[in-house]
């Protein structure tokens, strides 16, 4: 991981991701917050590319940037006007303290431990490897995940469907 291109890419994308994450915190309008969130998703997709995880990078772009952002935007459109100022609740200070604490612990753990660094460079291509792993080693979780998705879709439709009794009044 030492070619200059990858290092430059890492720093640019890292700053972009963390910057837009802070943007989500600071944005005054919740739509701006979602736009910053999408920017951090894209930054992450770039980071995955530097980690030579090409399938996950593209999947991240397709699912997070394409689908989940739309879910968030539609939820914002369907909910009332007055809560769109992305304001903080009364839990502000304790949340800040907790977040800083958790962050410090994670960074300390990351820097301090001796990771068993393998001396191989990135995978050539991961898509087919993931496919094989999904279908033989992780076949059961794969099925459970599909059931979970089905349940989630049906659940959300049932939740949001206008109640039948509303039609007849």
């Amino acid at each position, binding site marked *: 991981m030492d070619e200059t291109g990858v290092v430059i890419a890492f720093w640019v994308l890292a700053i972009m991701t963390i910057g837009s994450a802070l943007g989500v915190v600071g944005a005054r309008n919740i739509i701006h917050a979602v736009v910053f969130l999408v920017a951090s998703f894209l930054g992450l997709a770039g980071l995955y590319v530097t980690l030579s995880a090409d399938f996950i990078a593209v999947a991240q772009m397709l699912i997070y940037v394409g689908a989940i952002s739309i879910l968030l935007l539609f939820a914002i459109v369907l909910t009332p006007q007055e809560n769109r100022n992305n304001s903080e609740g009364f839990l502000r200070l304790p949340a800040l303290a907790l977040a800083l604490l958790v962050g410090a612990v994670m960074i300390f753990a990351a820097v301090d431990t001796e990771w068993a660094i393998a001396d191989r460079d990135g995978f050539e291509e991961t898509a087919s490897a993931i496919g094989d792993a999904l279908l033989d080693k992780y076949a059961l979780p794969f099925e459970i995940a599909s059931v979970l998705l089905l349940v989630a879709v049906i659940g959300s439709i049932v*939740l949001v469907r206008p109640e039948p009794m509303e039609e007849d009044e």
Partner: protein
Amino acid sequence: MSVDLEHYLIVSGLLFSIGLYVTLAKQSFIGVLIGIEMMFNAVNLSFISFARFVESGDPISGHVFVVFTITVSAAEAATALALAVLLYRVKGTVEVERMDLLKW
């Protein structure tokens, strides 16, 4: 100046703490969901960086696990946003503080 595991884990840690802050501090229910999504992504990043750097039997399992977390987070986002719309329909607001009753 080579880039290695610590850098990625620091980025993931920072992202996670920002996500945690957003989840806890934001007033609107949608803000909380944005925070949760950020935490999911931070975790994915650490998985991928471990899969890339750390010695392991089959490194691809990191990627497979991320696929599963993406599906779980997508399912969770869909259900949570359906809840947000339902909350608005029932309570007329999506402010988190106003949802103090366990049963409405």
